């Protein structure tokens, strides 16, 4: 970022104008637009992050709002007006109970291995379930776990966040309570081999950025 006290060769447009620009770019796109992309598209020296602050405030309580998804922003209709949009709503495939539970486990425990999902649910996870969630672009393969066998892990995608209107996985409903109750800890069966420390590291990583 350039030092604001240093005069730039290209004077950035006034903030009100930058706000209009951000508004136009976000409005035009159906997908969330990252801050990096906004910076790239606005004239040199612009500060879209600042423009976004006022713009978001301007749309508070309106029929459309600006939501933050991961590191990106998008206009979305206000949730209370959903009933007016019947025409636009797309019938989504009905997810099986196994798929919904698997999705929740990935979201709350990520990064999580298949074995861990099975341990929590108490049953095997079928191929179709994981496949369906990957197809929906709600979960993806994450980093391998640094434990014997180096199993792959699953994490949720930004598209998942966008779909459920979450800014980050920290906003998952009830996350704090679940964590406080110790229900997100990986707790091995007493007497079983101690869990390698790495596993716990993987757990925390996710929730701090």
């Amino acid at each position, binding site marked *: 970022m350039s030092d604001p006290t240093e005069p730039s060769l290209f004077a950035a447009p006034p903030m009100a104008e930058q706000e209009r620009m951000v508004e136009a770019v976000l*409005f*035009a*796109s*159906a*997908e969330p637009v990252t801050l990096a992309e906004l910076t790239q598209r606005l004239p040199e020296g612009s500060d879209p992050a600042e423009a976004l602050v006022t713009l978001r405030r301007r749309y508070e309580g309106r029929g459309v709002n600006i939501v933050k998804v991961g590191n990106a922003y*998008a*206009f*979305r*209709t*206000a*949730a209370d007006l*959903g009933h007016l*949009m019947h025409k*636009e*709503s*797309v019938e*989504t495939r009905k997810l099986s*109970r*196994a798929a*919904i*539970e698997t*999705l*929740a*486990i990935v*979201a*709350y425990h990520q990064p999580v291995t298949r074995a861990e999902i099975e341990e*929590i*649910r*108490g*049953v095997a996870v079928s191929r179709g379930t994981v496949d369906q969630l*990957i*197809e929906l672009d709600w979960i*993806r*393969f994450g980093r391998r776990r640094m434990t014997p066998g180096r199993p792959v892990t699953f994490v949720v995608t930004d598209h998942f966040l*966008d*779909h*459920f*209107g*979450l800014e980050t996985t920290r906003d*998952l*409903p*009830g996350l704090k309570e*679940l964590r406080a*109750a*110790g*229900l997100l800890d990986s*707790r091995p*069966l*007493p*007497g079983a081999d101690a869990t390698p420390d790495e596993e716990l590291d993987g757990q925390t990583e996710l929730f701090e950025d």
Partner: protein
Amino acid sequence: MAETWDQADRLAPSDRMAAEALIVDVDGYEGPLDLLLTLSRSQKVDLRKISVLQLAEQYLTFVSQAYQLRIELAADYLVMAAWLAYLKSRLLLPPEPGELGPTAADLAAHLSFQLERLAAMREAASRLMALDQLGRNVFARGIPEEVSRRRDIRYEATLLDLMRAYARIRTRDDFRPFALDRENVFTMEQALDRLRSLIGYAGNWADLTSFLPDGWDLTPARRRSATAAHFAAVLELAKRGQVHLRQSDTFAALEIRRREP
């Protein structure tokens, strides 16, 4: 499900036990943990405070009911039953002094932790699905604008594409059997041609295997293929009235003889 629980809650404990004995429907549960969670609901207490002993009893009753009704139980139900029976005996007996390993109380606490965690994840799943969802409660721009001034082609590929492509290449070999392995296959047409020219010599009963071509009895795969082809060809010839067939016993040698015109 909820109805079943409500119903169960209204009953006296003894009646409830009896009622549960009747709802032995293994298909209704997603494994032993799911069943245990359902059973634990009848205790109407915090999952951390459930009586694992009582739970073990209920589960074992369930399993024995299923057994009496001759319902097939998956192995994992039986493994759980064995483990709970073990846990139950450990819980009932005073700990042996100097015993190593986890205590029965630890094991019981872990089981209630598992149940509580499963219940919590189910609750979390339903809260997740109750969130405002894009395309259902909340909507994106209906007419995304795509002003074409400069055509910039961006090639897209997702990780899924990449993995599928790789999987396709690596498993190409698995598909090879679709292309018939000609080398080790003797077709019925070939056998028919061969037999037509040989049949003239079969004035007396002769074993079918003696008609197999040289070199086809060296490997089992080739022998099988040649035998099958010749057998089919002989049947065809018999149907056309060109040969007689006989077999003295099941699996005995099949013999053929030319049919005099």
